[in-house]
């Protein structure tokens, strides 16, 4: 059960009041999904053998697909689960980039150099 937290004196409007605990849960879900998919994208880029800019383009393509998938999971109505649409689309983009590069170099070394 979520606990309600009031953010303003005006309690008749619905917009400032939401359950912060559930919002944190939703953000954690997005973070986990994006991190896992960054790692998978890195392994894939290493196996295929992308060099240079093509790999980063591949990462952004995978992240866009992830955003679409997360929107579909939220039922395309972000205000039921999040306070702003930007969160669900762009949160965790750059944090996953580092994991992507790490696993990209790891898989590339494993498959092509070793």
């Amino acid at each position, binding site marked *: 059960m979520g606990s309600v937290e009031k953010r303003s004196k005006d309690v008749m409007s619905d917009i400032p009041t939401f*359950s*912060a605990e*559930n919002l944190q*849960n939703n953000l954690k*879900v997005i973070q986990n999904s994006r991190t896992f998919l960054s790692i998978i994208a890195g392994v*894939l880029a290493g196996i*295929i053998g992308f060099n240079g800019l093509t790999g980063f383009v591949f990462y952004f393509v995978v992240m866009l697909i992830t955003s679409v998938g997360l929107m579909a999971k939220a039922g395309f109505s972000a205000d*039921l*689960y999040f306070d702003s649409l930007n969160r669900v689309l762009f949160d965790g983009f750059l944090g996953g980039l580092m994991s992507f590069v790490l696993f990209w170099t790891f898989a590339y070394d494993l*498959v092509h150099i070793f």
Partner: protein
Amino acid sequence: MNLGFVVGVFGVLILSHAAYSTIQYRGLLKIMEEEFSRPPMNVIVELIIGLALCMWAALTFPGKFLSIHPDSDENRAVSLPDNSEFMIFNHRGRLFPPQIDMKF
């Protein structure tokens, strides 16, 4: 273990099998002294299948989205928290009229 986890493990297994196939393909190219441009077609198909499975697992395994709307049916304002013994209700707040209609 629920279905998302199993599907994710399966996707990772398919990916590692594709990696192993690519390593073998590179060994073959070294013997034939040719250049490596891209993995063979069956490996690419395997990678796409593995990516699809992992994407599905990544969207379902971490958990569901919970509604943040305070009026929805699963966000009830009154619940039984662990510290219900410490709550007192005989304070000055009882003189205020209830301002919001909360679902109990």
